[in-house]
């Protein structure tokens, strides 16, 4: 097979906010302790979508199982780090900065963007969809673009009359023309405003140039992944995309909420990959799905509290599907804090893997050390 000119690799990071219950996503259904510990939120063996003789997917994660069966999903079991932090915010910060010990303000993806586009030539090298820029995408001097809603993206979006808005954007452009002979703060503002306009000009062409037979679900993660797909297909040079799916903090009423979330998430991931394939734009894309921590082994009568030993997923055509690292031990003597799944692989191993083997970026400075990598990609 003759391959076309190799396209630059693209990484799509999907954050599951709140702490996804990995034990109820990939279920050790043969373990008595699983069922004993989870009288309320446990999934009975007959409902589990069985993978092998030991593990199975949550019944609402059928699309993920389909992709797994097709060999496109690497599951990293037991991801975490020493002394896992149970605070959402701190734990998420640790995931964003790859720095568990001290407070850092440099995001791991922002540092990767700096490597991919050292001169900051393209404001779209890194694009985040959804409200707010995650710290993972932030580092001093790194230009990234944050888009709430691609269809409504732009400046002065509340000005509805098209002609008025065009006029007012023209004034904006004039007001933010880069200038030298002013204070550093004002000149920085001019440059930033000019960058924003540069990104908007390109991103606004995206929706109009996209057609697809894939119909995504009507939920936030489907919407964000559709925005990622449309932007990627438009070929604007984006190398790192970010999307977020919230609501995983299932202290209460986990059964019903987790069913909905996994339906939304796994459906969106399947539709996303299908959309890319339809546009011959899937070969160069890998999706990394992560969360800040796993949840407590024992349920609390309604849901599960914060724990450790979570799971992550790497999805794509170039992925060598299968199970990576060990599923955390269900022997209570091995539990972290006496009640949590102990991690079996450090999250920075996965960052190093994605950076080096997928994006071709040196990882040592970004993850602050050398971590053993896994081999989740097809041999070239």
């Amino acid at each position: 097979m003759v391959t076309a000119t190799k396209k630059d690799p693209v990484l799509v990071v999907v954050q599951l906010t709140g702490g996804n219950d990995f034990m109820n996503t990939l279920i050790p259904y043969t373990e008595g302790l699983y069922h004993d510990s989870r009288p309320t939120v446990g999934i009975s063996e007959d409902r589990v979508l069985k993978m092998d003789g030991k593990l199975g997917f949550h019944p609402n994660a059928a699309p993920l199982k389909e992709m797994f069966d097709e060999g496109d999903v690497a599951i990293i079991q037991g991801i975490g780090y020493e002394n896992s932090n149970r605070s959402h915010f701190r734990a998420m910060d640790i995931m964003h900065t790859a720095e568990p010990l001290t407070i850092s303000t440099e995001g791991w993806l922002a540092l990767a963007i700096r490597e991919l586009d050292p001169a900051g030539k393209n404001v779209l090298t890194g694009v985040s969809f959804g409200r707010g820029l995650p710290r993972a995408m932030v580092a001093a001097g790194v230009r990234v673009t944050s888009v709430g809603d691609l269809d409504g993206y732009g400046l002065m979006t509340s000005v509805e009359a098209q002609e008025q808005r065009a006029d007012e954007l023209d004034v904006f452009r004039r007001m933010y023309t880069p200038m030298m002979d002013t204070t550093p703060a004002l000149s920085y503002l001019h440059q930033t405003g000019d960058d924003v306009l540069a990104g908007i000009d390109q991103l606004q062409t995206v929706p109009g140039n996209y057609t697809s037979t894939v119909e995504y679900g009507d939920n936030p993660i489907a919407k964000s992944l559709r925005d990622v797909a449309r932007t990627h297909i438009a070929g604007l040079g984006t190398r790192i995309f970010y999307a977020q799916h919230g609501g995983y903090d299932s202290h209460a009423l986990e059964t019903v909420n987790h069913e909905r979330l996994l339906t939304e998430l796994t459906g969106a991931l399947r539709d996303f990959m299908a959309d890319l394939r339809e546009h011959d734009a899937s070969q160069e894309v890998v999706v990394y799905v992560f969360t800040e921590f796993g949840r407590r082994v024992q349920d609390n009568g309604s849901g599960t509290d914060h724990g450790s030993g979570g799971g992550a997923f790497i999805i794509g055509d170039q992925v060598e599907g299968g199970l990576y690292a060990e599923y955390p031990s269900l022997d209570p003597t091995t539990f972290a804090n006496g009640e949590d799944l102990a991690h079996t692989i450090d999250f920075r191993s996965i960052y190093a893997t994605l950076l080096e083997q997928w994006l071709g970026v040196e990882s040592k400075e970004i993850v602050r050390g050398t971590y053993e990598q896994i081999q989740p990609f097809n041999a070239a």
Partner: protein
Amino acid sequence: MTMTDAGASTDIGLLSHLYRRAGFGATREQLDELSHQSYEDTVEFLLNPTPEVDLQNDVFARYFGGEGPDSYVSIWMYRMLNTRCQLQEKMALFWHHVFATGLVKNEHILSSANQIDMFRANGMSNLKDILLDLSHDPAMLFWLDNNENHNGEPNENYGRELLELFSMGVGNYSELDIKDASRAFTGWTFSQPPPLYPHGYYPALFKFDADDHDSGEKTFLGHTGNLDGGDIVNIIVQQQATAKFITRHMYNFFVADEPQVPSWNDLEPLDPQLINEMSSALLDSGGDIKAPLRLMFNSDSFKTARFKKVKSPIEFVVGVLKMVGEFTEPRPGLMAYSTATVTMGQKLLDPPTVEGWHTGKEWIDGGNLTERVNFAVEEIGDGDSPGMQHLITLMIDSGALDSPESLVESGLDAMGQLEVDDSTRDALVKFAGDSEGDAAPARAVRILRLIAAAPEFQFA
């Protein structure tokens, strides 16, 4: 052209500046009223808050109540919008910036909110009282692990940051001072509050555990004895370094953007003379916070520093809401705005680290500049809000429509006498000329929302 009230004795632009800095902005009506008294009297009014009988917590609970952080932030924003005691509220924010305590760790919003109430109550008192209260505050004690600071096993987190970030600044004490200051705070802890469910939040309360207190001899900054935390604070507040550090914080917060705090030991203040005067005022008054504030607000350095500071997200959002005259009475809906500042990079009650927020131009990146511009433009919208209606009427009555130049000038005047560069002015005048065929109110509102989108509007 300006729209000055007859009988006014104080410049509206100066008052507008004072209220942007010493408060969260003021409406045109408020400024007009204040312009009839002297500037110095207005500074005194701000320095001497009166009890606010019309801002009651039980009323807030009805409109903004709940157990989530957004409820507490909404209540704080309502106070910022409506309190007459603007400086008192701004000082609560000031100490929140300096004594940055994150919800991220305690996840106990009541303790974080109680800390802000403490800053509101003591923020303009005496520095010694403020640092003592801080050292008794459960949110702070937990944030910096003083509950893990034990007799024989000192934890230096609070002792170190008290010196480095809360009073003296790095370079003015030794590691041994940190060790003994930490020992002096052993046993300063808090009682564990009952869990949130099922009965709601209970406060954590300060507790002194005498058995866990190290009562051995300590040496701190040359003083030796069985020092406890109170003695440490007593010594700290007498230091020249403390006075300089705290007044430089005031300057950075109220006057002009200094470089980030960790570089202060290496870089001279922007206005060393004013900092010297302010720190003398603080020391000579025995630690009265009002003394350096009074000196600062009445200084030429302050008065001429208009539009020299990048607005923080909360200043930006509350300033716009105040200008459009929204939420002058408690009503649901304010909670939606508490997330607006988060997308702009400032989550109130949850600063990113103990160092606090990085300020100045570090507030701005492409994403949050977009958020800021879109927020201001959307709030001004079609100009239907009470605040905008008032401004538009004032503009039209004062002859704004005489020429493109006068439309722009009266718009800038209406927005707090905003000072702009020629490039901004030229762009606005061109637009004003191009829109001459449109109806008067529509032209006025479009100029106002374009001014709100200008780079200069990002500055206070």
